[in-house]
């Protein structure tokens, strides 16, 4: 071949390579300030020529079925996807086209991103709520932005009037005990559902006869004055991460105080060597009387032993992981209990409200349902994770739950409510029963590793061994957006 031709060929492929280089840089910079990742499960886009999809495969794989031509069938909860973005963006809009086949056991479909990888916390937004879409359809509804107020009897002309009344004198507007149920609304600025005047009579404190493993949060009542919490931390050194502990004290929405105990213990992580107990005391003075929430953030290596607090009312919110070799009794205000054992030594038959539940396998989730809340739980030993949508306490006297009923899978029946307030955008109805929902996220602080966010789809109650519904997913589109390149440059140079 002629050398002049060879030079032309070389120039051509080097140019092509340079073009690819600049294309990749362009994609990384995304100068327009946006990036869209879309996957249509009804089209088989995979070929040996193309690269990977920006939306990874659904996992765990056994929870989905994807036939030729789709759609993706979600058979169990939850489902995880990784979503690639070339750089971080401040906002993310998730659009899902789906067809729900839900029942009263699986009424809620939510989606979100992993926000805290240490504590495995997701930021979820509602996609579809069966109660709001179907059950309350016959109720008069008032709308203000995305807030929707459903009223059994039309007493309020708009949402603002209802909120004003509810924050003030709301004694005369309720017929039923539950009165108001919420969905996707932060109720910390709402008046508590409890009569606080009945509290404060009881003096004394609470000592937990067991340890608490991993992250926990609990409500307690202070009649005013000082707070005194003591305990000791035990580090199991079973995982590779450092085991810092953090405490956050909230009064309503307001963060009152926080404390961080760094892991400066000498034992090596993953060695399995137990640390010495690290004693601590948290004292805060001049606190107002009322209900407080304490959040203890720690990974599962840490156990909080010998918890003592100067409050007779102490209730653990949604989840408790008691560590004890002895039998223990708890009470929960919810009518439902979810149980999981991670340690073979913790396998046992537990008693929930008079019914026995045999926990015979580790890592398997067991459920029990009672007729009403306020059920006792008897364990022959601890080391078992108990979860529900209510609170757990040592005794009925110590139960404290200022939360409003939530419109989830354990919601009160329609007949027991007067009002429902929800921050919810109804799904858009498309052809052939398909629905489309859009969710907005502030993605600036979401967890992102190797260029990928972690997306979760959750339909609580959806399980492989129960035929209580499924979800067809036709398409997932994630549109990231934020500042464009010019705005970023202006920011850098303070222009």
């Amino acid at each position, binding site marked *: 071949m002629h050398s002049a031709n*060879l030079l032309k060929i070389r120039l051509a492929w080097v140019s*092509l390579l340079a073009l690819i280089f600049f294309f*990749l840089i362009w994609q*990384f910079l995304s100068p327009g300030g946006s990036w869209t990742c879309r996957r249509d499960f009804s089209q088989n886009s995979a070929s*040996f020529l193309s*690269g*990977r999809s920006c939306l990874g495969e659904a996992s765990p794989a056994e929870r989905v079925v994807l036939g030729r031509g789709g759609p993706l069938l979600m058979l169990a909860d939850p489902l995880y996807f990784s979503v690639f973005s*070339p750089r971080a963006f401040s906002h993310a809009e998730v659009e899902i086209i789906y067809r729900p086949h839900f029942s009263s056991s699986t009424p809620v479909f939510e989606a979100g991103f992993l926000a805290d990888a240490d504590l495995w916390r997701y930021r979820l937004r509602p996609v579809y709520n069966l109660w709001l879409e179907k059950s309350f359809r016959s109720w008069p509804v008032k709308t203000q932005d995305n807030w929707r107020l459903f009223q059994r009897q039309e007493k309020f002309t708009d949402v603002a009037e209802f909120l004003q009344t509810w924050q003030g004198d709301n004694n005369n507007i309720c017929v039923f005990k539950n009165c108001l149920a919420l969905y996707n609304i932060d109720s910390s600025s709402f008046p508590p559902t409890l009569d606080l005047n009945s509290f404060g009579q009881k003096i004394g404190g609470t000592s937990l006869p067991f340890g608490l493993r991993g992250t926990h949060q609990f409500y307690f009542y202070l009649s005013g004055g000082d707070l005194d919490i003591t305990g000791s931390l035990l580090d199991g050194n079973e995982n590779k991460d450092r085991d810092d502990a953090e405490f956050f004290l909230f009064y309503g929405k307001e963060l009152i105080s926080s404390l961080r105990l760094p892991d400066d213990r000498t034992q090596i992580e993953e060695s399995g060597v137990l640390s010495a107990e690290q004693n601590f005391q948290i004292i805060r003075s001049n606190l107002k009387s009322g209900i407080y929430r304490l959040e203890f953030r720690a990974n599962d290596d840490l156990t909080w032993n010998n918890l003592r607090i100067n409050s007779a009312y102490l209730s653990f919110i949604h989840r408790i992981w008691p560590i004890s070799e002895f039998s223990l009794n708890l009470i929960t205000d919810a009518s439902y209990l979810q149980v999981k054992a991670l340690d073979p030594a913790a396998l046992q038959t537990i008693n929930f409200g008079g019914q026995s539940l045999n926990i015979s396998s580790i890592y398997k989730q067991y459920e029990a349902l009672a007729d009403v809340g306020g059920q006792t739980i008897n364990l022959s030993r601890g080391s078992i994770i108990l979860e529900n949508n209510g609170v757990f306490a040592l005794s009925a006297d110590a139960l404290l739950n200022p939360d409003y009923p939530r419109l989830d899978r354990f919601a009160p029946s329609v007949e027991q409510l007067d009002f429902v307030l929800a921050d919810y955008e109804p799904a858009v109805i498309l052809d052939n029963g398909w629905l489309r929902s859009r969710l907005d996220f502030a993605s600036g602080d979401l967890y992102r590793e*190797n*260029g990928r966010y972690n997306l979760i789809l959750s339909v609580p109650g959806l399980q492989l061994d129960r035929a209580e519904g499924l979800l067809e997913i036709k398409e997932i589109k994630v549109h990231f957006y934020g500042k464009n390149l010019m705005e970023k440059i202006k920011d850098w140079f303070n222009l």
Partner: protein
Amino acid sequence: MKKLGFITFLSWRPLLEEIFYFFCSLLILGGIFEILLPGLFVLYFNAAFLAAIGLGVLLLLLYVRR
């Protein structure tokens, strides 16, 4: 006939070499991108497919000596 094919192949050898250099360079570029910006290169290119083509061209080049 066989000899003519051999001569034809020899005349195309420089082109094959350039193709081989291109795929090698593309894979090196991809490797650098994957180290610095994980996930970006493999989003658009199937690295295994590129490597297979590069290997195929290399085998063709080795088949015929200069």
